[in-house]
């Protein structure tokens, strides 16, 4: 078992891929927290706590849910909106939940508008601009999600969550796998249940990863 832990950065200019540091993906029915395999139940609670602690908890929906490819995608989009509405309902004073899309993966130069979108080639711009301290990716294709998660871990102190429809992401601080409408709704329920039990984080800046 690896001693490496996937923690909020800034870790390196080029952080190592967590997989290369021995972090492995969860099996079906499991999740991982900081690179350590955990039960899904524990992961729901930890993700909800991170959302409730953050000053700017943010959901980044990607093309797989933004576009209504099929009925399942449209239902997931509805669930994402429900989760966002739940975050807003449960927000404490000083908290500002956001919902920012990643509409596609084109490297947009010379600049993107970080207030309205996030781009996998420079996701740190959106994180920095909006002072996002906790985010969740959903509906982003594997490679682009990995790229974003690594850049965010490398250059920001944002806590990253992946609600992955495949096998999960080692590079996120917390990762679910086999994402479904039910799982998104369950996370929303957990946020609601834990409302009022968690203190808002005192500062968005952290000292960095301790690996």
């Amino acid at each position: 078992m690896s001693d490496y832990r996937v923690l909020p950065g800034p870790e390196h200019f080029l952080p190592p891929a967590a997989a290369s540091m021995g972090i492995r993906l969860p099996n079906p029915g499991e999740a991982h927290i900081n690179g350590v395999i955990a039960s899904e139940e524990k992961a729901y609670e930890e993700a909800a706590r991170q959302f409730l602690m953050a000053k700017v908890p943010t959901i980044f929906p990607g093309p797989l849910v933004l576009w209504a490819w099929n009925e399942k995608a449209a239902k997931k989009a509805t669930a994402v909106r429900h989760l966002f509405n739940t975050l807003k309902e449960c927000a404490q004073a000083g908290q500002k939940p956001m919902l920012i899309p990643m509409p596609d993966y084109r490297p947009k130069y010379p600049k993107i508008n970080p207030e309205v979108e996030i781009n996998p080639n420079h996701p740190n711009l959106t994180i920095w601009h909006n002072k996002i301290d906790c985010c969740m990716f959903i509906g982003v294709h594997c490679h682009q999600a990995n790229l974003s998660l690594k850049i965010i871990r490398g250059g920001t102190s944002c806590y990253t969550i992946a609600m992955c429809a495949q096998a999960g992401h080692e590079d996120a601080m917390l990762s679910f796998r086999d994402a479904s409408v039910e799982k998104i709704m369950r996370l929303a329920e957990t946020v609601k249940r834990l409302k009022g039990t968690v203190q808002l984080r005192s500062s968005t800046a952290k000292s960095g990863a301790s690996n």
Partner: protein
Amino acid sequence: MSKERIQISEDLYDIMPSDYQDLVKSSTYGKEDRGWKDIGTSKELIEQHSLCAGCPESMAFRYILASLPNPEDTVMVGSTGCTSLVFPMVAVHNIHSLFGNQNAVASGLKRALSVRFPDRVKDVVVLAGDGATVDIGLDMTLQAWFRQEKFTTICFDNELYANTGGQESGLMQKGFVAKMAPVGKLFDKVRLPEIARESGCHYVVNCTVSKPSLVEKVIRNAVHIAREIGPTYLQLYTPCILEIGKNSMEGLQEMRDSEKPAERFAYKEYVSEPAKQLLAELAAKDKERKAAAKQLAGQASA
């Protein structure tokens, strides 16, 4: 391709940047007679770009994207250069290839698309600068034509390597002095349109992009002929105003000056016999379609 496939999820519609909402609402995907006249009344397939102010290449891009007959089922293959700065802003599938490899990549792509989608029309259009087409990629360009690969090659000819500071290219005119070519070019501009004709291209045009209706016509012809018959080649003059010492507003005049009858970009066109026949058939069909539409409109208003 059905436009149903590109609907935004209703529950997340409001957070999508307006460009994407506009593309779904008012772009011209699927419109049979799309053309440059849609510019200004519909969402263009190019968003803001990073080219210099007044760059003729940006005009060329806008006219070409407005004129592609089948943008939803078209894949463009680009190469390194100013064009590669634009492709990220383009709402048409595109591939950035290694410098000079664009026609080789397009060959494989076209063949793969034909196998994967035998019942669908899939167009492939190469768009590269003169360095990629004529100098470094000449082998790939010619071999694709020799093999009669069914795609269109467009060369944005700015007569030098603009993106890297003004080095001499094969398409530079004889005697021209550039920032990084201080001695002046010692030999003539490579006559690629003639080489294209001799290499098997069925439709070859050499012109500037000063006239949008002309660009529309040659793009549509080139894509249709490539789809049905074989390779086509367009050499479009898109001067680099910075490298030839012009101001932003002088690009259009530079093109107009260069297309006068005795100049190097005077309109030249070659159409093979089978391509002529195809164009005649397409024109007849178009006429029929327009007559039917007119009749239908007359009936509706009666």
